[in-house]
């Protein structure tokens, strides 16, 4: 779902990578408006358009993090304005529980954010993306793929030891 090919984690050139899921009817349109209004905002958000914030499966968020996102932003219509009546409420409820779960898994709160941005709020898209980029920059890289590789080194170590045959494994 999210590209893993881009490498932006080498130390000096690191730039926060934010995956932004925007709903078609409000926030994505607002991002369009920001574009045609020539508003400048940080290029760190990769916007993915979904039909509704209620379409965002919590798996999408976890998948983004596990594939290298440093932050995940969800944008939807203001409460009461959902094109599908209830979708944004479902998103809000999922996000509230997902926030707790991410915290329990050690992921900083500021890496995950939900914002209601209506189609006319191009300025708000700019503010939110800039703000979040700076907050995530302060936190530094999350680097899940690198962490996975690091965790699995303990297996490689044993493999090498076994191949040396007959010798015991050191800590």
């Amino acid at each position, binding site marked *: 779902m999210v590209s893993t090919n881009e490498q932006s984690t080498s130390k000096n050139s690191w730039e926060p990578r934010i995956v932004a899921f925007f709903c078609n009817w409000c926030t994505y349109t607002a991002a369009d408006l920001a574009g045609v209004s020539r508003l400048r905002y940080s290029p760190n958000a990769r916007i993915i358009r979904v039909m509704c914030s*209620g379409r965002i*499966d*919590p*798996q999408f*968020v*976890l*998948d983004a*993090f*596990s594939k290298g996102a440093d932050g995940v932003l969800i944008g939807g219509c203001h*409460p009461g304005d959902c094109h599908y009546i209830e979708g944004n*409420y*479902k998103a*809000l*409820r*999922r996000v*509230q*529980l*997902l926030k*707790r*779960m991410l915290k*329990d*898994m*050690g*992921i900083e709160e500021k890496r995950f954010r939900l914002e209601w941005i209506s189609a006319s709020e191009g300025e708000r898209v700019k503010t939110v993306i800039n703000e979040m980029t700076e907050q995530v920059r302060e936190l530094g890289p999350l680097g*899940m793929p690198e*962490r*996975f590789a690091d*965790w*699995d080194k*303990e*297996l490689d170590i*044993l*493999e090498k030891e*076994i191949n040396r045959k007959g010798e*015991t*494994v*050191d*800590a």
Partner: protein
Amino acid sequence: MPDKPKVAFYWCASCGGCEESVVDLAENILAVVDAVDIVMWPVAMDFKKKDVEAMPDGSILVSLINGAVRTSEQEEMVKLLRKKSKLVIAYGSCAHTGGVPGLANQFEREEVLKFVYEDSPSTVNPQKTRPEIKVITEEGTVTLPKFFNVVRALDQVIDVDYYLPGCPPTPKLLKQALEALLSGKMPEKGTVLAPDIALCDECPRKDTKPSDLKYTEFKRPHAVQIDPNLCFLAQGIICMGPATRAGCEGVCISGNMPCTGCFGPTSRVKDQGAKILSALASQVEAKEEKEIDKILATIPDPVGTFYRYALPVSLLRKRIK
């Protein structure tokens, strides 16, 4: 007499329940013993590692390995069995998805060891002695396996051909799997040997599941009188059924306890915990953030509840420091 197919059973980080489930084949186990040669089964037979090492590669038809992998010894043994076996079946939740031992992925290795050897209420260890991997004594060197930082499902360590899910798998599923194996009629590699549909589909309370659930509170099973005929979700009790694979025929449900998710997700789901989180949270009644949080606060331990058997294979795998 032609050689009978060779079968090995092995256990890693597990509780022994999977071994029990093999014995639960009851009189069918006689047919199994008739049809195969068991070449390794630490719980019941006296074969040693060197016996397996002496066998030609690929000479075991199938190794059924239960338990998660969390020590260097387990890693070594499963790699040995992989080399000697044509097929490897991850047997039970721990081998399949990491299982209950996988919940230790919420902690660092050091936290686990410190609690066990120093802080737990039943521990008296004033010198803070910890097990050493290698101790040199006058009599010689003694070694212990290394305790890993991360708990892993079997397929995160070796290549796995099939999965028999469950905590433990039911005798019926084991019998079906053994019959398929011995007759050579196995499905595509990587298949989980249970129906690929959610438990709700075969739940005896299926008809009482409302199409529109509205949670105002989540209740814990020990704190309420459970109606034995009504869908658990309709009673506000967390049931993992919607996010869990069928195949157990609702054994826990029949015992008037909700599903806790041991069969893992269906093939379309990558992350079981995220899916049940989604299903439950989206149907909370409240619309205001504060009200929503109040209702969700009645789930005291989301990670432990939603990933009870599947944390090591979840998208995040482990809590980060």
